[in-house]
């Protein structure tokens, strides 16, 4: 690995912001700084190519509504960090992974095959049907599909206060 590798100011600034936000939300960025800076460079490259932060380790479809589940942070991050100690691209990891108690390397793809490029057949993560609530709610409840944050208000927040996912990644929960 080259120690001379240079990263742009934008990459470094984004790294610092993500690290701060991750730690405030109880997440951890991969402590291998070069590895992490490269991933962030890839995210910014995908922003330029596609207009959104498609996961650097997945081949983008190139249409936002078909890639919405793998926009970083992806819908699979929390489950992967829980099970394998790292998300699919290993931008986000757990303390256990950092301590070396989980194997470092590629993990299985959790994204359902039907959402993959060319195999795409329907909108990702359709909301589950819920039992009708016993009493009418005074406000709708919105769920962040990235981290599970819930809030009751007329509209979803512009940004998830926990994981910073955008408004378009909320679903009506109740």
């Amino acid at each position, binding site marked *: 690995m080259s120690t001379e590798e240079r990263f742009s100011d934008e990459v470094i600034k984004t790294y610092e912001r993500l690290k701060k936000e991750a730690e405030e939300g109880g997440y951890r960025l991969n402590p291998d700084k070069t590895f992490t800076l490269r991933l962030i460079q890839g995210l910014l*490259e995908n922003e330029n190519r596609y207009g959104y932060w498609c996961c650097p380790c997945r081949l983008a479809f190139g249409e936002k509504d078909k890639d919405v589940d793998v926009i970083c942070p992806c819908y699979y991050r929390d489950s992967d960090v829980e099970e394998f100690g790292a998300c699919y691209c290993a931008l986000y990891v757990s303390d256990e992974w950092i301590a070396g108690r989980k194997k470092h390397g590629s993990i299985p793809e959790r994204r359902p095959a039907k959402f993959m490029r*060319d195999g795409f057949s329907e909108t990702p993560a359709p909301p589950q049907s819920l039992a009708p609530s016993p009493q009418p709610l005074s406000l709708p409840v919105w769920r962040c599909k990235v981290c599970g944050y819930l809030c009751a208000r007329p509209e979803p927040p512009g940004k998830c206060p926990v994981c910073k996912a955008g408004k378009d990644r909320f679903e009506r929960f109740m």
Partner: protein
Amino acid sequence: MKFTHVPGRNAKHRVTLYALSTCGWCRKTKELLDSNQVQYEYIDVDQCQAEERTEVSSKVRELNPRGSFPTIRIDGEVVAGYDEDRIRELLEL
């Protein structure tokens, strides 16, 4: 399909790597091959345009039905993902 050929002193095996230019594990795979002077060819599928991208990604799915990256073919064997132990084993490193 336009593969990049990487010369190396270790040419015992035929190695083909399907990668994404932005992926950390793909990068690790290239570094593992490079540091062991393995001769290989690779293609960054995200850098391919329209038709070529479709053609290469169907080739990847033929080798690795999940179509994930990196996909590494070593002689007749396919390794899905950066599995350092398995890659070393197949390359006798």
